[in-house]
Structure formats: structure tokens, C-alpha cells
């Protein structure tokens, strides 16, 4: 359909409302591209929470104490909740829950590539909480002011729950770091492996992310990838000192003039490989999600059949 005058004036009015910091709500008119961008971003975020349960979930039965097991269970359960809040936000834009699951398990929608890395030791659970949840919080705090109301509200709820995730990871690593020599080395090894992938979580550099300008104009994104990454680095360096662990970057140093830490170049080729499906665990993550979906199908059907029978009983009575 060719754009008409009224489309143009609606686009203009929409942008003016955004500029005036008016939140967009589900039943408001919005440009088709705003809607599709929002659906893609929220769905990808939801998928990340759901897939993100797997790397840590693998350690629940092997947690070294009852305290650690209870903490890890609670954290993984929170991530399931985050996924559900976000799917509900996506659904306000007219897509179905099942449709989104289908897009995930057929590889047509993505999730954060960080979850395609394996969790090799118990220290990885600490490194994920400290670095991966830490990076996620940095990103999600900025998104509490995103222009789409249901997404922003889901972010507020999620951020409230996330801070324990990062703290438990920090505490876990602190204990290992001050433990035996072998424990300290295990903690250092985990940080060595998770540091760079955590920096990649903020996405490609601003100079190479073509959609950033439009997303910033629509206030979907409030802070650019590079700025968020810098924020995370500045926050994390002092924390690493408190932990007594090194961050694996020889170029990491305070830049007095910039008022920020400088850090070394990120291996974007590795990022592209993992996003492109060639990470260590891509196939496994999707296979597990698909198996859970197919294995749960009979439960969904049975519950629905039960409800249909209840309904017919009440109407017969």
C-alpha cells in the first residue's frame, strides 16, 4: 500500500509523542516498523531468559551445598519468570506465545549468544552471576525507560529481581578466590573464559550497528551499545580487585582524560561465529528447548481437555 498523507501525519504525531516522552501503550497506533522491531527485540529477550536457564540449570544437582543449591534453584526459577513477563509483553503486540516458541525452536528468532558457551566448572556459576547477570542488569536498567510501556514495566520488575543474581555470583567467586589454591585457580579460569563474551553481550560497536539510530529516535534504545559496555567495564574493574581476580585484558587501564577505563579490542569474529550458530552449545540449547516443548505437549492438551469437560458439565447442570 502506498503511503498516504494520513500515514505520514500519523508517523509525525507518533514521533512527536515519543519526543515528548509519552509512553506507547498496546492499543495506540504505531508505525508497522516500530511494532515489528519491538516484537523482535522483546521476543529475543524472552528467549534469552528461557534458554539462559540451561547453562546454570546443569549445575543445580551438583551444587556443593544445600545453601548453594537453594540459591541456584531460586535464580533459575527467576529467569523462567523473566521469560514469562517478557513473552506477555510481546503478546500485547498481537503475537501468540506458541508462535514465538515455534520461531525459537526452528531457529528463526535468536537469543543472546552468551548462552551458547558451556559451563565447565562450578566457578562458572559464579562468573555467570557476576559478569553475565551484571552485564544484563546494565542493559536492562537502561531499558526501564524504553518507550514501549509493557516492555518498560517488565524491565522494572526484572531489575528488582536481578540484583540478587549478581550478588550471589560475586559472593560465590569471592569464596572460591579466598579458598584453596585450586579453588582460586578455578575462579580465575572461569573469569578468563566469561569476560570477553560478557563484553560482547552489549552487541556490535555503534559504528557497525545499523539499526541503532532508528531505535534511539524511537527511544526503544536509550543508551548505545558502546556506552553501555563502557559503563559495565567501569563498574566491574573495582569489583574484580575486591575479588582478588584478574580480568584477562593486558590493555585494561584507567584513562584519566576520558574518566573511563580503556580496554583491549573485542574479537568480533568470534561473536559472529557464535551468533551464526557455530558456538559450542547452539545445537544443544535448541534441542533441549525443543524436547521440553514436545515433552510438555501432552500436559497442555490434557489440561485443555479437562477444562472443556468441566465447562460442558457446568452448562449441562
Amino acid at each position, binding site marked *: 500500500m502506498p503511503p498516504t498523507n494520513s500515514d505520514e501525519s500519523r508517523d509525525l504525531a507518533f514521533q512527536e509523542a515519543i519526543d515528548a516522552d509519552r509512553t506507547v501503550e498496546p*492499543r495506540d497506533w504505531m508505525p508497522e516498523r516500530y511494532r515489528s522491531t519491538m516484537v523482535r527485540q522483546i521476543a529475543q529477550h524472552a528467549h534469552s531468559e528461557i534458554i539462559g536457564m540451561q547453562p546454570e540449570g546443569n549445575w543445580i544437582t551438583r551444587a556443593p551445598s544445600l545453601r548453594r543449591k537453594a540459591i541456584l534453584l531460586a535464580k533459575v526459577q527467576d529467569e523462567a519468570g523473566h521469560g514469562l513477563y517478557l513473552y*506477555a509483553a510481546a503478546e500485547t503486540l498481537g503475537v*501468540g506465545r506458541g508462535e514465538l516458541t515455534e520461531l525459537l525452536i526452528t531457529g528463526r528468532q535468536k537469543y543472546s549468544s552468551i548462552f551458547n558457551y558451556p559451563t565447565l566448572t562450578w566457578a562458572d556459576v559464579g562468573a555467570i552471576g557476576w559478569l553475565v547477570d551484571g552485564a544484563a542488569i546494565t542493559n536492562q536498567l537502561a531499558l526501564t525507560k524504553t518507550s514501549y510501556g509493557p516492555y518498560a*514495566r517488565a524491565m522494572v520488575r526484572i531489575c528488582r529481581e536481578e540484583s540478587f543474581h549478581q550478588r550471589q555470583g560475586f559472593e560465590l567467586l569471592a569464596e572460591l578466590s579466598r579458598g584453596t589454591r585450586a579453588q582460586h585457580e578455578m575462579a580465575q579460569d572461569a573469569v578468563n573464559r566469561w569476560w570477553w563474551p560478557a563484553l560482547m553481550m552489549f552487541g556490535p560497536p555503534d559504528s557497525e550497528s545499523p539499526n541503532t539510530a532508528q531505535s534511539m529516535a524511537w527511544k526503544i534504545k536509550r543508551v548505545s551499545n558502546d556506552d553501555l559496555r563502557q559503563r559495565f567495564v567501569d563498574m566491574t574493574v573495582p569489583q574484580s580487585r575486591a575479588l582478588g581476580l584478574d580480568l584477562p585484558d593486558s590493555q585494561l587501564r584507567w584513562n584519566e582524560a576520558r574518566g573511563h577505563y580503556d580496554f583491549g579490542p573485542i574479537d568480533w569474529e568470534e561473536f559472529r561465529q557464535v551468533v551464526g550458530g557455530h558456538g559450542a552449545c547452539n545445537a544443544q540449547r535448541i534441542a533441549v528447548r525443543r524436547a521440553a516443548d514436545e515433552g510438555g505437549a501432552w500436559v497442555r492438551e490434557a*489440561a485443555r481437555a479437562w477444562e472443556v469437560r468441566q465447562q460442558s458439565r457446568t452448562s449441562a447442570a
Partner: protein
Amino acid sequence: MSHSEDWPLWEVFLRGRRGLSHQHVGSLHAPDPELALQNARDLYTRRGEGVSIWVVRSTEVHASDPDDQGPLFDPPSDKAYRHPTFYKVPEDLQL
């Protein structure tokens, strides 16, 4: 299995503590009211956020049209006398 038939959607309302009214907190899918309540408990009250839950089928919620916003909500704006600040009273009195 195809997902063409999702469980119906429910809106969830929570009473934060006694003395407060229920507030909308989000939505979820469930096949019936009983499971909707249980899912709401798991999803929205993991940290003692509520003492009472309502669930309502989303299709049962009727909403005003956002395009009506002007005509529907404008009238009060020219009735400033409905607000206490409209009236001049002696400043030294508790009124």
C-alpha cells in the same frame, strides 16, 4: 505439536498487603481459573509481593478506545472549581 491453540490469557491483580486494593501486575496463560491462580502465585509472588490474587480472563476486560482520549477525558479540564486550589481562603487558617 503445533501451538495454534495456546491456553487462554488471564490478567493478574495483586493486593500488596491488607488495606490496599488489588492492582494489575501482568498476565499469564492457563487452561482454567484454578491453574491461573496457581501460576500467578508462582510467577508474581515469589518474594511475598501479595496477600490476595485475582485472575480475570483477558477477553472479559473491556477497554476505552485510546483514540477517544480527548473527548472522553477532556470535560473535567474546564471545571477547575472541582479542585480545592480553585478557592481563595485565608492562609493562616487550617482549611
